[in-house]
């Protein structure tokens, strides 16, 4: 058992990191916001924590907390003005946010620029392992499970269904959306901080559009109705490239080299045929019925 773990420890930890990231985008999706800036939030958490442990000799957990808070702060500042945007406009704005952060990192020499930032190259070593990652994941999952059916979770669902009707029920929609956005950023920041200490090397390329899309795929494929869906999606899609090792080479074309084709096909199949994600399939196999509903949707306000 421990042999298996040692051989695959990075992959196992990566599944955990991806699950945390998927939860971060789930938080925003749960009130119908498509945010593609969580990769940038991950970057902020990663670089902040890395700088603190490497330059200022902080221990791991304080650095993770600081990274998460920094990420939340930036999200608050940049996110507050864009919160009144909806749908497509919000998605584009968050994409832009993500790019600005990536460009900023590339242009700051202290962060290593496009070459990347190497950790643990001195005599001090601060590392994270699967224990830390899964510890955090369990904590977050616990939090989510306690929230079920609470005033907060109902408010988020109401916002997702119909923002204006939610307002007239006394729900402060702007507050909840900002809170969801910032919380998502904090969670992504935690993932980033742990990730940096998992690999001991980070570069801006790790946190670009591709990462944001990957995380979105985790959440959508797993299912956006419940937080367990996000985790399920992350597990499945992270292990996918390993699973497709069995696919043969056809006609000189090695399709295994392009796992994004499989990701794309699965994502497409889910969106077209199982819009509530694979979790609903799993649940119905367990004979628990859930009502079908839109993946992400809320009726438009009519003046």
């Amino acid at each position: 058992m421990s042999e298996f773990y040692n051989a695959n420890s990075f992959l196992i930890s990566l599944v955990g990191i991806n699950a945390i990231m998927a939860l971060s985008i789930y938080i925003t999706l749960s009130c119908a916001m498509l945010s593609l800036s969580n990769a940038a939030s991950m970057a902020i958490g990663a670089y902040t924590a890395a700088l603190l442990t490497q330059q200022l000799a902080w221990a791991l957990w304080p650095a993770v907390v600081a990274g998460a808070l920094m990420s939340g702060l930036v999200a608050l500042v940049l996110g507050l003005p864009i919160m009144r945007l909806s749908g497509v406009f919000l998605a584009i704005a968050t994409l832009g946010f993500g790019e600005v952060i990536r460009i900023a990192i590339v242009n700051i020499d202290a962060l290593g620029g496009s070459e990347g930032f190497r950790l643990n190259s001195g005599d001090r070593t601060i590392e994270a392992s699967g224990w830390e990652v899964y510890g955090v994941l369990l904590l977050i999952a616990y939090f989510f499970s306690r929230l079920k059916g609470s005033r907060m979770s109902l408010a988020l669902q109401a916002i997702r269904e119909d923002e204006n009707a939610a307002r007239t029920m006394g729900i402060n929609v702007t507050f909840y959306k900002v809170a969801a956005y910032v919380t998502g950023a904090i969670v992504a920041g935690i993932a980033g901080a742990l990730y940096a200490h998992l690999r001991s090397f980070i570069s801006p390329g790790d946190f670009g559009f591709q990462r944001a899309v990957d995380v979105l795929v985790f959440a959508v494929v797993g299912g956006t109705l419940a937080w367990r869906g996000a985790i399920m999606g992350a597990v499945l899609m992270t292990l996918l490239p390993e699973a497709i090792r069995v696919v043969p080479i056809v006609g000189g074309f090695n399709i295994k080299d392009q796992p994004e084709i499989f990701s794309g096909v699965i994502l497409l199949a889910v969106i077209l045929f199982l819009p509530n994600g694979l979790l609903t399939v799993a649940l119905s196999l367990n004979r628990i019925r859930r009502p079908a509903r839109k993946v992400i949707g809320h009726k438009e306000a009519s003046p």
Partner: protein
Amino acid sequence: MMSPVETQAIEATTSSKPLLAVQELTRAFGGLVAVRDVSFDVYPGEVYGLIGPNGAGKTTVINMLSGLLPPTGGTITFRGQRIDRMPAHRIAALGLSRTYQNIRLFGAMSVLQNVVVGQHARMRASLAERLVFSPRVRREEEAARRRALTLLEEAGLASLASQPASALAYGNQRRLELARALASGPHLLLLDEPAAGMNAAESQALGTRLRTLAEGGLSLLVVEHDVSLVMSLCDRIGVLNFGNLIAEGTPTEIARDPQVIEAYLGSDE
């Protein structure tokens, strides 16, 4: 916290101040003036009807009162506070609740959850307490669920509590919307065409229910197309036409008003 009945009884004896005072309310969309200088008051315990042909501006008025649409002119005062620039959620917390012309339930949420969420503004535990899942929060949420069930019983929907709201028949959906709007314990309930799509028997039942609520002390502002319902239910009626309030008075007075009759000629009823 006092119930609406108690509050209104006190208000009624201490003053004849209106619960809702609308003054010169105006809304223009570019060059088109949808509502122009509309003024009326709704007193505590009163049922006020707002009628008018299609396109007269009734829904625009309701949207302005509930805070979904800012007026371009005029003022709205509710329980002594100016609400014309207030965000919708704060207006709801003040005690002004509404239903929608085309039902806007939270379809994927259960019937019970819809009514629970209607109590959102009433639940007073602080954010800090919520984040640590304090027992007070648990008690409050339990109480909200119990209250929601009671409201569902009153509406005759208790047996459907765990169904998704979208699965309900139309008539039940209307009842659910009303129950949800009542969940917050409002002082004033705005009803936007509550009898839409109902037959005569259903409208009658609705009228009875609303009468009961009004007798319990709830003030109502009813926007309706169904003139007979409005006539039998309302204490006073205002008539809108092309965005202007052209007449106001008791049902008998309105029925005789030549301007009103003319406004309705050629419009559908």
